[in-house]
């Protein structure tokens, strides 16, 4: 198959890099949510202990 012209190839290349970045962002967001939950639970534990 002959090489695609730049304007047509661009969307495929952009698509591949967007998939990569999106995967990493979603993963980091999920871990970030978990860390935020842990922080909240620690705060609750500390406030329970204070009482």
């Amino acid at each position, binding site marked *: 198959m002959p090489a695609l012209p730049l304007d047509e190839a661009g969307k495929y290349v952009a698509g591949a890099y967007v*998939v990569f970045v999106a995967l990493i962002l979603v993963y980091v967001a999920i871990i970030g949510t978990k860390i935020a939950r842990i922080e909240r639970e*620690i705060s609750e534990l500390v406030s329970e202990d204070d009482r």
Partner: protein
Amino acid sequence: MYSKGFAPLAWATAVTLTTAFALVFFYAPLDADQGFVQKIFYVHVPMAIVALGGWIAGGVMAIKHLRGGDRSWDMRSYVAIHLSIILGVGVLVTGAIWAKASWGHWWVWDEPVLVSFLVVFLLYCVYYPLRFSIEDPDRQARYSSVFAIAAGAFVPLNFIAVRLAESYTHPRVLSQTGGNLPGEMRLTFLVALLGMTLLFVTLWKLELTAKNASMQLKKLRKRARVAA
């Protein structure tokens, strides 16, 4: 414990990946055969190599767990396998995009590299139901480690089998003669591979830190309940 050296590692990852992408789009020449579409190579292939390496590393960590009985090695193995599966999803999607752009099809069933990666990926998808169907933590860790070792041994065997296959539609990147990459492309590829490896290690440490913090918190809650 796991967060030691995390900040410099994260910075090194960010700098290396940014450099890699700058090299991809401003330094590496266009491929004479595929043109601009070949730029997908610099994200797809490093992701595949790191995913396969992560699965093998998961197997090695599982061996450490079974030999020493330290459950933290099982956790390390689990996170490495989990991350490799996520990268594996990226490999399959970016591979499909590349296949569509260069071969005109999203998937080619008679191409050994694609199908063998899918087989390895599906094999590791079994890891989750196996692991989480066992409630007893010690048995869970032990059975998961056995799976990780067996599957980890399958990865290089699979790689060798593909090498011995006759179809060579897929480009060869790594070979004893250094593949067919010109200097600029090889440098860009190696920087991208380094960046991807650093990203894997950074995310591995991040998830281990979160899991460890969660376990410590559970222990604290238990102690607080007992004290109350």
